């Protein structure tokens, strides 16, 4: 469970707000898509949840605990974080990358190894084939699978994702989206995923929050957004995948 209460963020001592008064709640096992254009404040919002940024005011609860009272380092070890840059450690093998958080948490050696084996299997990179490879020896899609595995290795239940599939080619992206959705359901993960791709949000999210200029314009399920967009900007966003779908249909019919 993640809850944001009246979160504000200013980088210039209150003259302007990148995030102004946001409140939202993600229930356990739900995936919230945070969508908006660049500069809308979606990434800043996400980074405040694992305190890579500090909110200027407001309260953030993760599993009913106020994260602002926790040590940022401990907090981040308990929350998975996946982003477009992936950021695998180039000097470590796949196995060591995935084991990073368990090692930071001083997990027992054999427990760490069996957990890494399990999670690598889950993302489709069996440890016997991939464990000893270095990130430079993997494709982009494989690297992001390792990124996801690293974020989940310490049995994190909350996951923050910042355009995780943005840099992948379309086929790989669709594969990974499907697979990730499956993993999320199986593990009952609570996820906030930042994206600027409305199609991705509609297909993956349980709830979608549309952000613009630091504010949330509308929150609702994909169905609600498609049927009752209560804002012009939301309507426009919805129109994009819809008109694409229509045009594709026309193309196929015209044959």
């Amino acid at each position, binding site marked *: 469970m993640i809850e944001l209460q009246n979160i504000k963020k200013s980088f210039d001592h209150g003259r302007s707000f990148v995030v102004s008064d946001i409140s939202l709640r993600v229930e356990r096992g739900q995936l919230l898509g945070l969508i908006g254009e660049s500069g809308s404040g979606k990434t800043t919002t996400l980074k405040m949840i694992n305190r890579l940024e500090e909110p200027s005011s407001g309260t953030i609860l993760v599993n009913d605990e106020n994260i602002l009272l926790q040590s940022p*380092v401990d907090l*981040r070890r308990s929350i998975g*974080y996946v982003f477009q*840059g992936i950021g695998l*450690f180039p000097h*470590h093998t796949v196995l060591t990358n995935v084991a990073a958080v368990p090692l*930071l948490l001083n997990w027992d050696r054999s427990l760490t190894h069996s957990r890494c084996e399990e999670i690598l299997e889950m993302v489709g990179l069996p440890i016997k084939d991939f464990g000893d490879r270095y990130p430079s020896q993997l494709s982009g899609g494989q690297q992001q699978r390792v*990124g996801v595995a690293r974020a989940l290795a310490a049995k994190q239940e909350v996951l923050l994702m910042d355009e995780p599939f943005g840099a992948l080619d379309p086929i790989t992206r669709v594969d990974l989206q499907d697979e990730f959705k499956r993993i999320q359901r199986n593990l009952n993960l609570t996820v906030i995923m930042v994206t600027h791709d409305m199609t991705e949000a509609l297909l993956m999210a349980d709830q979608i929050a549309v952000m613009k200029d630091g504010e949330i314009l509308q929150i609702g399920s994909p169905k609600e957004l498609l049927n009752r967009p209560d804002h012009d900007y939301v309507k426009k966003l919805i129109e994009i995948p819809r008109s694409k779908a229509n045009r594709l249909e026309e193309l196929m019919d015209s044959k």
Partner: protein
Amino acid sequence: MNQNLKEQLVILPDYFQGHLTLTLIALSLGILLSIPLGIWAAQSQSVKRPLLVGISIIQTFPSVAILALIVALLGGQIGVLPAVIALVLYSILPIARNTVTGLDSVPSDVVEAAKGIGMSSAQVLIKVKLPLAIPVIIAGIRTAAVWTVGLATLSTLVGATSFGNYIFTGLQTRNLVAVTVGSIAAATMAVVLDALIAGVQWIVENRNKSIEPSKYRLIRNSTGGVFLIFCIGTVYSFLPKSEPDFVVGGKGFTEQYVIAGLLAAELEKSGFDVEQRLGLGTEIVYSATANSTVDVYLEYTGTVWANRMKNSHNPGRELVMQGVTDFVEQVDGMVNVGALGFQNLYALAMRKDRALELGIETIEDVIPVAHNLVAAGDLEFFGRPEWITLRDTYDIDFSERLTFDAALMYNALDDRQVDLITAYTSDGRVAAFDLKILEDPRNAFLPYDGILVASHSASKNPTFMRVLKSLIGQISDEEMREANRIVDVDGGSIMDAVAYLQSAID
């Protein structure tokens, strides 16, 4: 084998030891100092700029000036300490700059991920940033190592033994074999050290890649082997050396090398263990004797009179001698043991036949014909106060004043391209070209009597003083000139010249 080369190789272990010690101490301290500095600078922009600019400025200082400044700041102490300080200062820039560059070039994605998964700042630095920056840092250490080996040759100037002893002695005494041996030795040490660090760098860079194991093993083992040899050399170089009884100092030209050799030989005859520290700057050898790092060296009265006592007038030879004796004793606590007998001063010199033709014996005889004569000076003479004093004292000027490199100047005089040159009275070439030194009845040139200056502590040893006193008044202008000629013109060794002086004295 060539006798000269054999002589050079005999002293190789000593010089190797000195050079390696300097290099390793300086490089280790440089690394220990520069990497933390680089890490500190990489943390914040406000530190980085001023720090990098600051250490770049140090780098632009001429190395000889830095050495002299450090000796001055240490109150005249010479030897390994000032040399190491200078070398450390020079090694900071490449290592610190590469540390900053290496840390800055770690991809921001990786740093964000490290923070994002919950590493503390220290863990991000130690587990992620430093390991990724290490190849760049090592590249900086390689640069510093090569610079340090090269610059260490300059340590000779402040009295620390290095391969520079070969080079400076060789340059001053025209011993190209010595210069070559010194240069090759220094270059070899630089290449080996560089290759060694390159091997470490390769291992570090390739530890994460699937390299053919046999190739990896080969490079790892050969690096390890060279490293082992280096360690043995290092241990050997740090073995304690026996302290000499006395240290003979000297400045960096032939006459100084010869007299230092004579002093050492005479002291050794009396059973003392003597070390020579030669090629020192005038200021450095004076201060080193004042604080008893050096026990005796050849000084010139005019040098102390003008440079240290800041006198510009010339009261005559005896009064200058008296003034200098009092000054070194009362101000700096040293002892003027006495004059060896020869002078090394600026003078005007002519071909003997040309002087005869014009009827010239003294500088006064030059006055009526000066406007018809071409004079040549060495690179500095016409810019020195000596020239102004000469001109004003005799109211003399020449039709032309040319400036030459000293060696070319003598040839120009010999070829009759010039009529008159400025020479040092004890220069061996005055003897070689059979020149006439013009007398100076009006004392325009300061007297430069060669005197032995002994340190306070050494002057307490009666045997030491007896040996030095036995040399007083024993070496004439002609004999010193001949000794210099043996080295400078005939290409003989310092020991040949020393042997000549010993036979002349007995």
